[in-house]
């Protein structure tokens, strides 16, 4: 197969060349590649070719299929331009032992689609899960996502096990005593809606504890779904003193601020909550500057009855893996806040790197490619499964037109 005349993202910059794919692998790149007899040619004139996206924070509802069937999640992910998910451990039952990790890894998926697994740090007894077994079973990360690992001593030990097995430690950094006291961050919105507020320091103080513990261990600490300026500054300060810390941010924290709460729309109810305009701008700026290297969707599907009720009783979560790129392009790229190269890199090769996945446009790499057409205004559509996607119906001028997984066309726009 030859992808002809595309604008290709390679090493963070765009370049125009043709790509040849053979046996599921990128075999050649160059100008004016001429097709062999019978070789498929895909015209990519006026199209962007990016490495497929990798979501490093996904809630796949194993055991809670009524929220969204895992197969639907995978189909929506591919539609959104993804070739990989990193599954968070709060499935039912949780991914807190080797057999559950193995079961999750066996999830059926198209060729070239990768399921990564994050095992739990602690189990339901409040002790450490069998981290070494979990790692041996194939997990690439550990996390107590949904909660912070409250017990400092246990988190310290977890960092040591993670270091031995080179696991990424994904930190839902949020002081639980403060979080329990509220629903959203203290601020103008908590005052106006009556929704109880908790201080933003809940994030920064948790990052500080975990960063200083990691200063003594040297594991790969990753702050997921960063939401505040204070949290960002704390993580940056830790990096300054040599602590290994990386960060990701969700599409919704880049798009919404606390004023969104005034509508009591349960579809934008997520944890961590949205900060104010300053927080949002700081996150966008940090993505642009490279302080934040990754975008993760925190895709968290819920059923309609769960979301269609009183705001405070509805579960936290936004399910947007199918439209993350489209909405981010519209909100960040068309507004010149973030260059397209930066957005694509933060969604593809950067998360792949943290998950230990060989990825990107290079000879010998698996041919996982997302083809994008710009200047194609359309309304973001509902793609089945959970409906808690606040972007459905919004305009976007970019669309994923084709997803190639291991050399096969896995998705084509409009087909």
């Amino acid at each position: 197969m030859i992808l002809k005349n595309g604008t290709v993202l390679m090493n963070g910059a765009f370049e125009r060349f043709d790509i040849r794919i053979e046996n599921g692998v990128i075999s050649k790149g160059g100008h004016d590649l001429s097709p062999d007899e019978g070789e498929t040619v895909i015209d990519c004139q006026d199209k962007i070719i990016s490495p497929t996206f990798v979501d490093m924070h996904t809630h796949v509802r194993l055991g809670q299929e009524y929220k969204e069937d895992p197969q639907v999640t995978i189909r929506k992910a591919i539609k959104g331009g993804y070739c990989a998910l990193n599954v968070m451990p709060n499935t039912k039952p949780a991914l807190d032992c080797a057999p559950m990790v193995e079961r999750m890894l066996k999830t059926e998926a198209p060729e070239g689609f990768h399921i990564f697994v994050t095992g739990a740090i602690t189990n339901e007894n409040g002790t450490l899960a069998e981290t070494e077994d979990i790692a041996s079973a194939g997990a690439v990360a550990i996390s107590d996502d949904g909660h912070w690992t409250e017990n400092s001593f246990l988190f310290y030990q977890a960092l040591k096990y993670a270091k031995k097995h080179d696991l990424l430690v994904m930190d839902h950094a949020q002081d639980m005593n403060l979080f329990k006291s509220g629903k959203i961050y203290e601020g103008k919105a908590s005052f106006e809606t009556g929704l109880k507020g908790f201080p933003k320091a809940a994030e920064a103080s948790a990052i500080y504890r975990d960063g200083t513990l990691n200063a003594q261990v040297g594991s790969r600490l990753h702050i997921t779904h960063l939401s505040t300026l204070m949290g960002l500054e704390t993580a940056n300060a830790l990096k300054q003193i040599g602590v290994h810390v990386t960060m990701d941010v969700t599409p919704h924290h880049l798009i919404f601020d606390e004023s969104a709460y005034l509508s009591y729309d349960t579809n934008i109810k997520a944890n961590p909550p949205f900060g104010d305009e300053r927080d949002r701008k700081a996150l966008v700026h940090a993505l642009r500057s490279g302080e934040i290297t990754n975008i993760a969707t925190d895709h968290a599907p819920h059923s309609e009855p769960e979301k269609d009720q009183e705001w405070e009783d509805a579960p936290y979560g936004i399910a947007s893996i199918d439209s993350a790129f489209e909405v981010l392009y519209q909100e960040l790229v068309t507004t010149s806040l973030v260059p397209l190269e930066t957005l694509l890199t933060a969604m593809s090769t950067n998360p792949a790197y943290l998950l230990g996945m060989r990825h990107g446009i290079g000879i010998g790499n698996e041919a996982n490619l997302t083809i994008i057409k710009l200047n194609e205004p359309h309304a973001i559509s509902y793609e089945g499964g959970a409906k808690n996607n606040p972007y459905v119906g919004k305009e976007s001028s970019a669309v994923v037109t084709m997803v190639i997984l291991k050399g096969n066309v896995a998705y084509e726009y409009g087909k």
Partner: protein
Amino acid sequence: MPKKGVQQMKHLLGIEELSKEDILYILNLATPMKDIILREVKKVPTLRGKIIATLFYEPSTRTKNSFELAAKLMSADLVSVGVSTSSVQKGESLKDTIYTLEAMGVDAIVIRHSRNGVPNYLSSFSHASIINAGDGQHEHPSQALLDLFTIQEHKGHIEGLKVLIVGDIMHSRVAKSNIYALNKLGAKVVVSGPPTLIPNEVREYAEICYSLDEAIKDVDVVNVLRLQLERQQTGLINSLQEYHRFYGLTSERVKHAKNDLLVLHPGPMNRGVEIDEDVAYSEKSAINEQVSNGVAVRMAIYYMLMGGKEQ
């Protein structure tokens, strides 16, 4: 979005979304309504053939009685849905309850709920008018309107007055609605209370004065909030005794206030905690009048949402 005038208003969700004109319109309507209450024959046919439902998910005899009496005085039919606190329903059944009431032909639903934004949520699908009778820590518009009506009766106007609100500003929907309404009508608002119960964001609408002794000196009105006694367990106040010493409205404190100070309290009172008995029953207090004014204001609300159009 262009603001809807009162005439087209369908729901009463909060004071925040009302204009100054809307508020004055309701206050003006309340005066003739109060005359009805004071008459020998306390009944008008204005809402004959209309059905009003009260749906209270939180116990509140006072507000519920007031809304129900107001409905009866205007000849509306009443459906009183008692929801025991032990069986506070999940969302699906709240939605079902509304659909059931609609199927019964209910024209307006008066809702009290512990969850913030429930009236807003109901208004997103209900065909009946939704009247907020207090939601979580969000708003309690009818209480603010009756407080303003009482102030206006005593002072003749609202604009230019200095009004002090004392107590748990953070968790009080009464405070929130009052603060919005007073701001819109041009009164100056001062809040006082323990630092743990005064949110920073209130600064946009009011001056904060932590010392009640200071704050009381030059205000025209003091509105004393009911203290939820369980605040003690959550670590927000240290003891009821300490609270009384610092934030209780005592006759000693009232002595240092203006002579014509007007004292309000939304009730029910914790005597000896946020207010002393001798202050509550002094000639400065309008606490009992607030009760009858409450009925008048709620009649005005019904009239605005349901009666005005056909008259």
